[in-house]
């Protein structure tokens, strides 16, 4: 079974996202910030990461940069999922190694479409 790590500081968003990725057949793990996500990735590298941008402790873009520098850190498909909805943020994310980008608000169809674009389903 493929695994997906949902990284968001909002418990509500994590719950909604978990339901969507589990319905798509992923086993789901959660993290509340970038540092917790990095710790989780060092234990087990997931296949996919759904990543918020603005979080306490370590934000999404710093997490992504750190992740890509890790051993095996190129493996996960990283899909940003954020309210940062402008071209400057999108290009910054792509340069840092993001594979896809979801602009909030999102729904199941958008996540599924973006996971398909990224070759996950």
């Amino acid at each position, binding site marked *: 079974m493929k695994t997906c790590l949902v990284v968001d500081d909002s418990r509500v968003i994590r719950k909604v996202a978990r339901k969507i990725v589990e319905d798509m057949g992923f086993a789901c793990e959660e993290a509340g910030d970038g540092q917790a996500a990095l710790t989780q990735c060092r234990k087990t590298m997931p296949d996919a990461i759904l990543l918020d941008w603005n979080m306490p402790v370590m934000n999404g873009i710093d997490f992504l940069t750190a992740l890509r520098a890790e051993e095996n850190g190129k493996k996960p498909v990283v899909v940003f999922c954020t309210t940062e*909805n*402008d*071209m400057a943020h*999108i*290009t910054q994310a*792509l340069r840092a190694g*993001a594979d*896809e*980008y*979801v*602009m909030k*608000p*999102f*729904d199941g*169809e*958008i996540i599924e*479409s*973006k996971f398909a*674009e990224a070759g996950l389903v």
Partner: protein
Amino acid sequence: MLPEAKYRFLSEDVKRRSGLVLGPEKGYLVESRLAPLARTEGLASVEAVIDLMMRGDKRLCEAAAEALATHETFFFRDKTPFDLFSEVIAPALKPSRAGRAMKIWCAAASSGQEPYSLAMLIDEMSGLRADILATDLSGKVLEKARAGLYTQFEVQRGLSIQRLVKHFDQAGENWQIKPELRAKVRFEVGNLLDDFSRYGRQDVIFCRNVLIYFSVEEKAKILARLAGMLADDGYLVLGAAETVVGLTDALKPAPGQRGLYVKADSGASAPVVFRSATAAA
């Protein structure tokens, strides 16, 4: 989130006016389709639109129904037809179309996602030029198509982020197809029941998910006329639930390619028919 009573009023009113069913899970659709209406009406929110509707503003009720009924279409819808274009149609036609633009007609273009998706694919291929004509019955949806302006919701289904960055500019809350890509598609109001021979010979015709709205007789007539416009080695692409079989002898399915049709008398791939020589006794 809209209060339940207001959502219920909206869905009942819309259903009565256009037949569209808005289930409780369509909150995002309502928000994304009615937010532009709220803005053009100078109202603070979608909820304010519904408040006025509940107070009997008939004009606003109709505007809301129309905004919500907009035919569902998205970029690279169904994916397969676009894979067929890249992997079958373009490679087959490219050698003989060198030095001139390939002629493509999208015969039910709606708000433009289909012709723009094709324009993106062609832009990504080297050595291929195309003249894309996009027609639709509704002048209103073609206005939107021509502007190439799409909501955040619309650009997130079927479209990769790389294509969004490459082919769109941000326009406030919306996203607009870049002028150079918009310039590659010509939009015209057109009815499939009218004479459309003025569009001239086409190398590729996309006519998806529209024949289902016509009677069998009309379907047969339209298909025969489409076949008449198709280049001898051209391709017709229909929707997944549509076919030419039993409707016209002028077209046949392309072997092994679902949704793809060629002229019945087109060269090499035609089945060999052995005729009996004993008929003229």
